[in-house]
């Protein structure tokens, strides 16, 4: 990890999840009872209960065996899913921002006791850094049978099976023509927490056309020749806003937390964008 990125990461931590977590024993409060020191409730003793949890003081007062229940402490599983399609490398800054976000989320999850996995959306291995166009993973998954049926039917789901009750972070630009709602719902299904991050390049938010331009789709090589008319840019921005609103609505509907990030320096992404949107909070 780059020192600059590491320094920025250490200033923040992942925001508290809205729902209790599940997972291996750890230092995060689980959704059920467990072996932490935090008292949660009493219940009647049943044979087999750990005698060390019998509340003897209550028995002295009521002559009834009561067992003290404590909050479960878990070490949650986490998956950081990165869209590695060519569109995420349309500019050098966007590609670097994607890498920074993946590393930052992995670091924040690890520092909170989780066990993050880095996965590639749509197919391929994150470690390989292979650029897989959106949709290619469907054919690859169907051919290998490695992915579950829902994953094989999705363009954003990784091929690897996802752990139940895991924290899932999906980072993509979501600049696809089809509706991302089904993918988000599948990712949210069985997840303890789903975080959706839409990463866009600054030019994608504020495009500028200096004269007639041939736009080349980095995914399928499609070409579109456009004039530099302001109404074209305005029309593009209007459609992008509608796409963002639709995506945010789909994320909310899936119970996910959503954040839109403009590619830039790590400190600016964290402080100016993730922090105001509640995805991270100051470490101190």
């Amino acid at each position, binding site marked *: 990890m780059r020192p600059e990125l590491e320094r920025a990461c250490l200033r923040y931590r992942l925001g508290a999840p809205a729902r209790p977590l599940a997972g291996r024993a750890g230092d995060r409060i689980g959704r059920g009872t467990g072996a932490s020191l935090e008292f949660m409730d009493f219940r009647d003793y049943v044979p087999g209960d750990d005698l060390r949890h019998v509340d003897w003081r209550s028995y002295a007062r009521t002559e009834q065996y009561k067992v003290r229940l404590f909050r479960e402490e878990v070490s949650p599983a986490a998956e950081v899913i990165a869209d590695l399609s060519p569109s995420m490398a349309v500019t050098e800054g966007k590609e670097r921002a994607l890498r920074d976000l993946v590393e930052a989320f992995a670091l924040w999850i690890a520092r909170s006791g989780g066990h993050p996995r880095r996965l590639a959306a749509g197919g391929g291995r994150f470690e390989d850094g292979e650029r897989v166009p959106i949709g290619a993973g469907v054919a690859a998954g169907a051919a290998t049978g490695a992915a579950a049926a829902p994953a094989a039917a999705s363009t954003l789901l990784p091929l690897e099976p996802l752990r139940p009750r895991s924290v899932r972070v999906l980072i993509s630009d979501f600049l696809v023509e089809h509706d991302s709602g089904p993918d988000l719902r599948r990712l949210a299904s069985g997840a303890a927490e789903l975080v959706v991050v839409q990463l866009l390049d600054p030019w994608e938010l504020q495009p500028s056309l*200096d004269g007639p331009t041939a736009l*080349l789709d980095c995914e399928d090589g*499609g070409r579109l020749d456009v*004039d530099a008319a302001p109404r074209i840019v305005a029309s*593009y921005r209007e459609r992008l806003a509608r796409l963002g609103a639709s995506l945010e609505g789909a994320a909310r509907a899936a119970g996910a937390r959503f954040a839109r990030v403009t590619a830039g320096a790590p400190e600016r992404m964290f402080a100016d964008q993730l922090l105001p949107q509640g995805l991270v909070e100051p470490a101190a």
Partner: protein
Amino acid sequence: MSFGAPLGLLALLALPAIVILHLFRRRLRQRRVAGLFLFREGPLVASAGRRRTRLMRSLSLLCELVAALCAALLLGGLDLGAGASERHLVVVLDDSASMGAVGPDGSPADRARAAVAAAAEQAGRVTLVLTGARPTLRLGPREPSALAAQALAGWTPSQPAHDPGAALALALELAGPEDRVLVLTDDPELQPPPRCELAAVGAPLGNAALLSARRLARTDGETLLADVGWWGPSAGETTLRVESAGGAALLARSVQLEPGQVAHLSLDLTASSEDLWVRLSDDALALDNAALLLPEPLRTVRVASLLDAEAARLLALERALASLDGVETVTDPAAADLLVTGAPGALTQGRTELVVGAPGTERDEWIGPFLMDRRHPLVSGLSLQGVVWSAAPGELDGVPLVLAGRQPLLAEAVEGSATRVLVDLDPARSNLAQSPDWPILLANVVERARATLPGPELVNVRVGDLLVWRPPHGDVDAACELVGPDGERQPSRGVRPVVFESRRTGLHTLEREGAPLARWSVRFADARESDLSGRGARSEAARQPPQAAGAAAVARGSAGRVEARWLAALMLLAVAGDWLALRRRGGEGR
């Protein structure tokens, strides 16, 4: 710097063409985007009706311009080094016929060839200019000196006397300040410009010349009129022979002549429709010793009169016409070439109408002075001395040729090939018909009518004269070509009548689709060129020698030699660079 093939420089037009192509090409910046579908509903760039865009100084444009420039310079035969490092010799060659006179030591033309060869050895580049009424380039400009001998191998001086000034001016334009200009002539009296060297290579020779020759038809035969001149240091003798076209000798006459004397010979021949050769004995200049005489065509003018009997009597029309050669009186006005009438009628193309009469009853008598347009052939030879001209006052519908005060008396109106000659004259009150001017005026009108007859006007002409042929009336096809004595074909220029300038001696034929239309015999006749007594040799250095080539120019020449292979290599590099630039741009788009 010089260009071996200046027409190749037309390839330089490729440069603006490339710039224009780049200005109007559909040149789009390329940008890779992730959400192309978000732009899809936007208006596309117009695929047709391209507009001019700002010129992008791309590597491709630069390479294409360099490649086109190199190709143009290659085609143009650019040679920087030759022009800067090699000496340039400009030779002005007297192309007059006297340069071909052969004496005991050869001809001036031979000596001129040797002089050019000697001078060319000291120069790298040579330009040969031939004198003439219109100077021509025999070689050059700035051709390699090795080509000079070849260029002069077939040179035969044959021009009539002319002013060499135009050729000298052209030579001075072609020569740089450091170039040598050499004038080769046989005229020792020529005074060239100060920048020119003079080398007169002539020699005085005796020479006889056939200055004119003409066949005249008689009722009982033909008469040959010939002028023979002699120029030499003493009296000379020559023999004039008349031969048929087949070579049969018809007549021979020996002529004794004093120096400078011209003998006018009149020889009777039997009537013949064949071509005749008239030859003199061999002497120094062969060009002026022979003439081929074609039978003069009959160009009879048919005249019809619509005058009443009294007017015709007063004008003595019948008697006046009878005194003219080549005139036939006809009664059918439609068949006439010249129609004499008392009032203007409808003009017919190809016909001349002579209107003699005074309308109305009012008359003015004019006794002079008469103002005449002397340049016009219709009034040629008129004096109108003692003439009392009675005319009706008023304007004439035409261009006035004879006026008395403000009163026009004779006018001409031309419409196409139709001509109307208006004579405001009351024959009963005038004495013009009794004066010598009347048959002269009638003869002029007849000749005016004869000039509009179809066919060639003259068939035996001299070098430099015009060959004129009028197509028959109603013939709208003017496409024909003149075949010269050496087989050279010269198409007509689509104007009527067909006119060519005779430049070479010999038989010329006008053809249309292989069929002969007319023939002309062109002979050389110029006493100034035939007189070889004043020719001589003289050398004169240039009064203003050419500037010495500076050291800087020599260094520039040795270092600046641009060989064709370097231009070709640069062009190939530019083409390869353009290919790479376009390939890279294509790769960016993928």
